[in-house]
């Protein structure tokens, strides 16, 4: 008798069909969020604050009550939701531009206040939905539609290392960076998301996961090559790891 080892989590809407581009890692990240919601029994009590960008479409796929926030404001909206109803499980699913550029103040202050929220941030080094412009995480040397000769330091400045910054906030209970470049790393990513959810459930503080993801369309690469780039370029600068976990004694 065969046992089922994989299924579409019940947190998904019936017959959910992604609208992401072929090979886009958003699809994996949304599935991991859905799996964690299901496995922790959170779906019916969860409220999502969705950000602007490709990430916003998460509300089309998950059967979770959702509020669409203006660009960058997801964690301010999530703060309002949680303060109004502290018994709800509240999370955001954001892109790097939303979280770390236009919404950096809202993101960091939510962490500094120690809001009991979980934030998932997709880092794909570009603004995806608008067609691949330079973002806060664009790597030095990377060519985008607004860095046509590559991001050079003198002209554009440095990219931001989000997980490290969030780990520095006293209100942060958990901050990690994970990657979706390979199946073992996808499994690690799921564990990190689960941890970021659990610290909220235990009321310990702000839980954060930065997910290194591919954007084959805007990188103009095959899905396979895009994962090589995540490995060979992104992970060399944005090192995966757990940057803060107050549940582990040092």
């Amino acid at each position, binding site marked *: 008798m065969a046992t089922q080892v994989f299924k579409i989590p019940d947190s998904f*809407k019936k017959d959910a069909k992604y609208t992401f581009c072929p090979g886009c890692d958003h699809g994996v990240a949304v599935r991991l969020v859905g799996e964690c919601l299901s496995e922790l029994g959170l*779906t*019916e*009590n*969860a*409220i999502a*604050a*969705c950000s602007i960008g490709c990430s*916003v479409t998460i*509300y089309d796929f*998950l*059967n*979770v*009550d*959702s*509020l*669409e*926030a*203006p660009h960058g*404001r997801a964690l*301010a*909206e*999530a*703060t*309002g*939701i*949680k*303060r*109004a*109803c502290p018994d*709800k499980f509240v999370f955001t699913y954001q892109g790097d531009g939303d979280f770390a550029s236009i919404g950096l*103040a*809202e993101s960091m*202050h939510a962490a500094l*206040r120690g809001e009991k929220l979980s934030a998932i941030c997709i880092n794909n080094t570009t603004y995806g939905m608008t067609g691949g412009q330079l973002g806060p995480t664009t790597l030095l040397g990377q060519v985008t539609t607004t860095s046509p000769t590559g991001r050079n330091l003198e002209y554009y400045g440095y990219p931001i290392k989000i997980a490290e910054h969030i780990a520095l906030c006293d209100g942060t209970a958990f901050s990690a960076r994970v990657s979706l470049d390979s199946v073992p790393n996808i499994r690690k990513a799921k564990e990190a998301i689960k941890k970021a959810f659990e610290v909220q459930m235990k009321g310990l503080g702000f839980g954060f996961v930065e997910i290194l993801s591919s954007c084959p369309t805007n990188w103009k690469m095959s899905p396979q090559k895009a994962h090589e780039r995540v490995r060979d370029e992104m992970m060399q600068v944005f090192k995966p790891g757990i940057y803060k976990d107050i549940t582990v004694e040092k």
Partner: protein
Amino acid sequence: MTATITNKKILMKGNYAIANAAVLAGCQCYFGYPITPQSEIGEFMSGKMQELGRAYVSAESELAAINMTMGACSMGVKAMTSSSSCAVALMQEGLSYATSDQLPVVLVSVMRGGPGLGNIYPSQGDYFQATRGGGNGDYKLIVLAPSTVQECADLTYKAFYLAHKYRNPAVLLADGLLGQMMEPVQFKEYPYPEIDNSDWKLSGAKGRDARIIRSYAPLADNQCVYLEKLFEKYKTIEENETEWEEIGTEDADIVLVSFGSTSRNVKTAAKICREKGIKVGILRPITLFPFPTKRLQELSNKVKMFISVEVNMGQMVQDVKLAVNGKVPVELIHKPVGAPPSPEEIVSQIEELV
């Protein structure tokens, strides 16, 4: 300071009266960032909300404050923020989204001088900001304009009621004069029915399909249908909720139109005019949206002149002109910023105009 229901009048600052009324109205969450001349509201709320086990967050910016308020409103609770002029400017994005998301946000806007940083003197320079808005797209905010500290309290109740009744942001548009002055005020119980929001608020998708509160309508046709519906709602609000005060218009040749703190001196000026034999009446819009356009149209059939009295460079006068539509002259008496023109100043300018 405590939140008080009282049978007798107590002396209170306008800002405290607003905050006290908000607590009595059942406001569960306050989000704000300090700015003169409305900081007393946040100061009152910080202590009171904590004491009552409700939420107060000292937001990192007004941008965050309005979005936190939207978040709380999406859960169906009464929530508010308060600010002033150059900082309400920062909230315009949120207000546009809140109208589109149909969230019952309550914003207290205590006007100061502008543009830019301006100054902290009283002003009515944000009539346009409140009634036209600086956010994108077609939308309207419900705007209530108190003229006394008592009205600051009463219209705060009403702002919560109308915001929830129509699922649209409501603005209490006060000014630095009202916010900072002390007057006797009496707090009755919240007089309005509670609005059932169980069919739209977010509460977790338990035993039902998930709800999405969103403003994104990717297809042009969807957006057309949506906007038509939104403006149907605004028509209903105009029909049901337009409120104004009218004095001595039965036989008036001239009708003075003014709102907020300015209308106090205008009332005295009208009395002096009557003593001098000039037949002056008063129309004071209490709701700036919906604006008493119909009533002004009716009056334009029998009066000889309208004069809008304002503390700005002439903003509401445009709405008066739109209502009167050229039937009779519409004039403006104004001060750019600061205390309203004195009754004597208003009278002498009326005498010049007639």
